[in-house]
C-alpha cells in the first residue's frame, strides 16, 4: 500500500476456498463412499454442510474432499443404501 492510501485501509475480504484453513484436520471419523454400493442419489452431497462432497453431474459417484470434510457424518446418516462407511482417524 502506498503512503497516499494509508488512510483507506479497508476491512475487505475476498472469497477463497479454504478461507478458514484446511478444516479436514478437525475430523475424527472419515466418511468413505463405497463406489459399488452407491446409487448416485446425491443425498450425501445435498446435505453436506461443508460443500465437501463434490460432483459435477448426476451420472457420477460423488467424491469427498478430505481437505475440508469435517467428519460430521451427516452423509453417512443420510445415505439410503449404506454406501458410506466411517473410519476412525485419530
Amino acid at each position, binding site marked *: 500500500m502506498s503512503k497516499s492510501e494509508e488512510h483507506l485501509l479497508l476491512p*475487505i475480504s475476498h*472469497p*477463497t476456498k479454504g478461507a*478458514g484453513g484446511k478444516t479436514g484436520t478437525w475430523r475424527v471419523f472419515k466418511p468413505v463412499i463405497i463406489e459399488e454400493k452407491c446409487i448416485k442419489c446425491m443425498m450425501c452431497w*445435498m*446435505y453436506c454442510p*461443508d460443500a465437501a462432497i463434490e460432483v459435477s453431474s448426476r451420472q457420477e459417484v460423488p467424491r469427498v474432499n478430505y481437505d475440508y470434510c469435517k467428519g460430521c457424518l451427516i452423509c453417512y446418516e443420510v445415505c439410503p443404501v449404506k454406501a458410506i462407511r466411517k473410519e476412525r482417524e485419530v
Partner: protein
Amino acid sequence: MPKTILDELIEAGEYLLPGHTACPGCGSVIALRHVLKALGKDTILVIPASCSSVYQAIYPKVSINVMIYNVAFASAAAVASGISQALERKGFEDVNVVVWGGDGGLIDIGAASVSGAAERNENIFVICYDNEAYMNTGIQRSGSTPPGARTTTTPIGKIVGFKKPMAYIMLMHGVPYVATANVAYPTDLYEKVKKAKSIKGFKFIHIFTPCPPGWRFDDSKTIEVARLAVETGYWILWQAEYRHGRIHFELSPPSRPYLDASKRKPIEEFLKFQGRFSKITEESVKKLREWIEYQWSIAKRFLDMSAQK
C-alpha cells in the same frame, strides 16, 4: 433423462465454499448453501452479528462467494432497505438484497427493523435461520427458544415464554411472500427462495436449522432432528402470498399429512435426541404440546381463509 431439480442444484454451483468455520454438522450452512444456489451471483447478503458473521471466516478471506455486508445486530433490515433503495435510485434491477441472520438478530433485537422494512414493503429478502438461541455468544435463550429447552440463561430449562411465531407475525404485515423451511427439505427451501426471487417487494423466509453443539446432539443427526421437527408437527412448512387484500396460504407437501394431529409422531421423538431437553419436565412438555396446537390452529385459520372464494 429430463432435468430434475437435483440437476439444477448441481448446475447452480457452490457459493458456500468449503473451508468455512461453522461447527461440524451445522444446520445453518446447509440452508445457506441451498439459499445461495437459488439466489445466484447477483446477491448481496446483509449479515447482522450471528454465527454467520463468524463462519464466513476471517479477514482478508471469506468463504462465501457473493457480496457480503456485515452490519450491527439490530440494523440488518434497515441497512438492506437503504441498499435496495439506492440500487433502485441508480436504476439497477434484479439484484437480490438479502438479510441473512439468526433468530437473535431478526426475531429479537432486530425485529423492529424487520417489521419496519416489511411495513414499507421494501424490495428485500429477510431470511432467518432459526437455531433457537444465541449460539454465537454461547447458547443463551432468545425469543425463539422453545419452552423447556436448557440454555446457559435457562440452565434448568425454566419456562420463560412461548417461541415467538415470527413467520405468522410477518404474514400479518401483508407482505407479498412469507414461507417457512427446514434443512431436512432442501429442495423445498430451494424452490421457495426461487419463488421469492420472482416477487418484487418484501419476502420473509424462516428456516429451521438445528445446531448440534447448542442443542446437544451428535453432529451426524442434524437432518434427523430437523425431519422430526416436521413429523411431530413442531415445525410447520408452509408458504403464503398476499395479493389484493387476500392471503393465499398453503401447507408445503412434507407438512400436509400432519394437519391431521393423529398422524404426527409424539413430540418426545423430537425431544429425545437433544441434550437441551434431557431434563425436561412434564409441565414443559405440556407447554410445548400447547404451543404446537396453537401453531396449527393458526395454520388452519389461514387455510380456511385461503379456501374461501
